[in-house]
Structures are given as C-alpha cells and as structure tokens.
C-alpha cells in the first residue's frame, strides 16, 4: 500500500514536471522554472544574419498569409469579422493597398516598435546570443532585443507588451520561440493585418546549412484569424557588422514632411 502511494506521488510529480516543460500555447501555462537544456543540445546560431533581399530565397514578405506573401489580396486573409472590420481602417504603405497619403502605419507615422513578428519583414540583420538560461535575439532595426527564457514557462497572466513574453526550447536543430502577452498596438505585417492581445507567435529558427538560416513564423490568434498562418523566410550569413538603424521620430518626421508628403500633393506644394 505504502509502495503504491509512493509510486503514485512520483507519477504526479513527474507529470507536473512534464507539463512545465511544454510550451504554453495560450499564455495560461504554469509559472515556474525548468532545467535548461544541456549546451550540447544547442544548435549553433552564431553569426550575423541578413534577410538576403537580393538572393533567390530572400523573400520580401508583406503578409504572413502563405497564400498571399506579397499582400496582393490582403483582404482575403482568413480574418474573423472583428479583424476584418478593423482592417478596413488601415492605410498601409506596402502591398496592393499601399498608399502614402495619410498612412496610419504606426511604424512609419510614429516610429512605434514594429513588434513581433512584423520586425522580420524589415530588411535588417539579426543575431543571437545563446546562454543556457536566456537566448538574446538582437535586431539591427531600431536596435531592440528580446530575452528568450529557456528555463521557465509563461506567467499565468503576462503583462501586455510590444514584444511579448518569450520562452524558448531546442527541438533538435531548431530553436523554437513561443511568445504571448502582446499589446494590440502593432500590425502583424506590412499590409496592416491587425491582431488581438491574444496573439500567440511561434518562431522556429533552423540553420539549413552553414550560410542559411530559415525562420518559420506561425500566427495563432483565434480572435483575429479563423486559422493559423505560417510562412517562412531565409536569412543569409553575412560579414557586414550591424549598424545603426534607429527610428528617431525627428528624423522620420523630417523625411515624411520633406519627401513623402510632397509626393502626395499636387506639384509637391
């Protein structure tokens, strides 16, 4: 009897431990710690990665909808009625609906952070700093970074933020980042598809070969989309050091006033 009780307790403990090691899929995972994976299990992501806009695989995505990567028919993305209504008000500077007149792109208009996953649609480099407990992802565009926790789950009720709460794990040769806890202020993509604060993003980074890194992004936001959206792009290893591409509002405003807006008025007046 006593032996059976011990076995039962052990089984419960094991089950709890296992459940903690699973990624939270809805932001409701149990908070707690996990044992980081051994360094030997880490795929090597070192180096500077360029989105390779000039190469054959340098896909210039404007939408995460795999059936419409260049946003030629962005209204056909499987949005919920809530998202479709919200999408009607966007004035994107990219894609088939592009307009530069009174665009309300929060990045171009206000230098808002592009957030995740939109930041991957910009043509700037990324790099990784891998430690056992945290993997840092550094972005050349606007010089922002994320800390991907490798030793815990999501908080039960994460704060809403621009970049969300990111946890990670290695699956063989793939680095998987699971992020929840976003605000709803960013666009998903260059064509203005909206998302809710229930957005859940899964990024999968895999080194296809020494010089190429594939990024697959899955959008899981049932409030906004009737099915998950998954698209991939490829980065290329580069020797070009990361530079300064800040979005300084004063510079952006001056450029908007002196160049962009003058292409939108008769004779540039």
């Amino acid at each position, binding site marked *: 009897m006593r032996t059976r009780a011990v076995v039962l307790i052990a089984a419960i403990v094991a089950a709890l431990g296992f459940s903690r090691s699973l990624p939270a899929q809805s932001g409701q995972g149990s908070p707690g710690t996990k044992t980081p994976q051994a360094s030997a299990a880490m795929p090597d992501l070192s180096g500077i990665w360029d989105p390779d806009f000039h190469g054959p695989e340098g896909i210039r995505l404007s939408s995460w909808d795999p059936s419409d990567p260049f946003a030629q028919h962005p209204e056909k993305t499987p949005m919920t009625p809530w998202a479709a209504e919200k999408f009607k008000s966007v004035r994107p*500077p990219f894609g088939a609906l592009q*307009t530069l007149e009174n665009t309300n792109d929060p990045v171009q208009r206000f230098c808002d952070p592009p957030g995740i996953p939109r930041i991957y649609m910009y043509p700037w480099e990324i790099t990784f700093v891998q430690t056992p407990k945290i993997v840092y992802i550094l972005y050349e565009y606007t010089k922002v970074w994320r800390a991907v926790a490798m030793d815990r789950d999501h908080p039960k009720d994460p704060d809403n933020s621009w970049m969300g709460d990111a946890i990670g794990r290695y699956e063989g040769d793939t680095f998987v980042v699971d992020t929840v806890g976003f605000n709803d202020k960013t666009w998903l993509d260059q064509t203005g598809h909206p998302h809710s604060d229930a957005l859940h993003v899964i990024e999968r980074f895999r080194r296809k070969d020494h010089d190429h890194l594939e990024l697959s992004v899955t959008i899981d936001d049932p409030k906004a989309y009737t099915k998950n959206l998954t698209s991939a792009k490829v980065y290329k290893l580069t020797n070009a050091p990361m530079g*300064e591409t800040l979005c300084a509002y004063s510079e952006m405003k001056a450029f908007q006033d*002196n*160049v962009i807006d003058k*292409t939108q008025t008769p004779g540039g007046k």
Partner: protein
Amino acid sequence: MKSRSLGVLGVVAALLVLSAPTLAHHGVAGYDMAKTVTVHGTVTKFDWSNPHVVVYVDAKSDSGEIQHWTIEFASPVHMVRAGWSKSSMKAGDDIVIDTHPSRNGAPIGITSTITFILKTVVNGQPLPTRSE
C-alpha cells in the same frame, strides 16, 4: 549656392520590373517606377541619415528655371553595404543622377531602395549601382 546646373537632360523610358513590394520604410506608391529621368545639376546638400539618405540637387529645367530636386536613397546602412559612404558626395559637387520621379510632377525622385541603385555619377565618377 552657386549652381553649375546644366539642366534636366531628358526623360528616359525605362521598363523596370515592379517586383519590390517591400522596401525599407515605405512603398513606392508616390513614384512612377516605370519612368526614369536623368537630372544633371549641383548637389546642395547630402543628408546622410535615417530613415533614408537624401540628396538635394539644383538643376535647370528645359525652360531655364532652377528646379530644386529632392532624391531619396535607401537607409545609410544599406547604402554602406552597397559601397557608398557619407563622403560619396558633398555640396557643390556636379551630379548626374537617374531617378524615378514623383507621380505628382514634383521634383522629387527615388534612386535607390534596398533592391536597386540607379546610375549616379558625381564629378564624373560613377558610384556603385545595383540592379533589381
């Protein structure tokens, strides 16, 4: 600014592939990407800053009046990676530059994005270009 502007040399028909749905910060809706004009004038300012490098050029139109051109390029880091620098030109330099003009007829153009750099010659020396 003393101008040695020789004028807009002419409009060159250019059939460019419109396959650049994504640029750095904005699309190209304001520009006629099927048209290329060649501007010959004098650099009045070379603004090497984010979000886009911009050159200001005084050029003389066919009717003889000075036109103040504003021509944008890609971001500084992308221009560096293409072989340009903040010293590629300066105020007072003679410049011959191809550009896609604004659709509204304003003397505004785009000569480079992340995907291309059109012909730009400063004091007789060509700067690095890039095909789509």
